């Protein structure tokens, strides 16, 4: 299989990472060699195998639905690149 530049552009759009032409070509090369290596899995027949979705074979514990962190607004805002009082600020999204 081969991952072309168009596919790279598509994935980069989905991943929200801007990629210029030069990077895209390098990435296509890297991804192709990685996927060549991954293709080895097709040697295995797995039709009747149950997928392993969780390695820890325990069911989730239930807990009561209580608020444990109170008044942490300041802590949450503290690391924001840009905020305005109690809000995160982002580039304008509504015309």
């Amino acid at each position: 299989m081969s991952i072309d530049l168009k596919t790279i552009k598509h994935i980069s759009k989905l991943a929200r990472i801007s990629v210029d032409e030069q990077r895209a070509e390098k990435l296509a090369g890297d991804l192709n060699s990685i996927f060549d290596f991954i293709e080895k899995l097709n040697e295995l027949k797995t039709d009747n195998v149950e997928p392993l979705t969780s390695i820890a074979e325990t069911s989730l514990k239930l807990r009561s639905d209580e608020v444990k962190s109170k008044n942490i607004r300041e802590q949450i805002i503290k690391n924001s690149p840009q905020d305005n009082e109690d809000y995160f600020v982002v580039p304008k999204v509504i015309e």
Partner: protein
Amino acid sequence: MSDITKQSLTELVENIKNKKLSSTDVTKAFIDRSEKSGELNAYITNDFTSALDKAKKFDQKPNLDLKLPGIPMAVKDLFCTKNIKTTAGSKILNNFVPTYESTVTENIWNEGAILLGKLNCDEFAMGSSNETSFFGNVQSPIDKNLVPGGSSGGSASAVAGQLTPVTIGTDTGGSIRQPASFTGIVGLKPTYGSCSRYGIVAFASSLDQAGPMAQNVKDCALLHEVISSYDPKDSTSIDFKRNHYSKELTNNIKGKKIGIPKEYRVDGMPKEIEALWQKGIQYIKDCGAETIDISLPNTSYALPTYYIVAPAEASSNLARYDGVKYGYRAKGENLIDMYEKTRSEGFGTEVQRRIMIGTYVLSSGYYDAYYLKAQKVRKLIKNDFDEAYKKVDAILTPSTPSSAFKIGEKTNDPVSMYLNDIFTVPVNLAGLPGISIPAGHDSKGYPLGLQIIGKAFDEQNILNIAYAMEEKINFKNKITDWWIK
């Protein structure tokens, strides 16, 4: 003073408890040596001033009942530390100061230890050589221009170089065991669910585990005892009875059955590694245990499986870095442009590559062919181990297919870099514990490690085997202090 940093954790704890040393003596000694070790680039952030304050405070009213009384310790910069910058080795978190503490580090401070600083690592723990860190590569104390391994490269370098008595790393595909092997130290990757993931910067959540790295097995057991705990804040944390690993440590492994998996004899593996493995088998027998040839037939599929599962989980986990709530933000013409530029400028090459792989395998039309397929193969790999453990108590393998390589040697070939983790990755996929112990040197004088893989929750058993073997191996790490002027 210089002798202090050569002491093991167990010795330091004893000397502090017997009042032969104060926490201030010990903390000063490690700070002093760390300050002379800038060339290793093991630290991203140091907290020396406040470490010394804490040590003095400890000495005024020492609580000697604690397990790590006044012991200074640097930790991998993947653990969130309250009010101390936590970067995960990435530009995107270069300004991130957590307002909370990871459970594992909290456990360590609760037992009396003192934070020295945050140790360098591959960006988001994605790498096998510590060359993907935004803060530059780490030098190995073994030799100049040699990689310490990764992703816990700063941690390995700091323990082997005696900048910290012990440390903790994280292991998603070998990130504790491989650097431990490369630098001649002991590293344990615990069973999935034994150490809380709360407050650890996430890479691949079904594989990530924190674990101890130390100069010897006993220190490793002691630190593991401190960090392993049930934590309701981690939904995959498992509530099981934990041992007093260091107290229960024994070198009596008579009658234990140790499996030797033939599939780990891979093509192109250096003769030195095979010889080391044979030596390990002999040591096992010398200890009165028995070795049994076993088969783990799907071993060669582990690495391709890992390179679907881990990037898929990473691409989801790293979606949170969008420049809005925390971390680096690039200027953009609109919201989407801001996201795309932030992630393009904030993430390094390897992280972008893995996000792209992960996004692709999870994208519409490819999910079944890749992700679902990988989950099925992961099941087969786990079944292999389940089957083997009907016959044996543990498994012995080499830790890595080669000794440490030079800085820059593998950076242009991602697949050859990934092959480093060939013996460690199956253990993460199956959620098992694995420990790497130093077992010899290659012809260049570089350390080589052996790995002991256990049943789930059977850390005590592999620690015991490691302890018994350690005594027979009598490994001496060759640290020349080349970086200290």
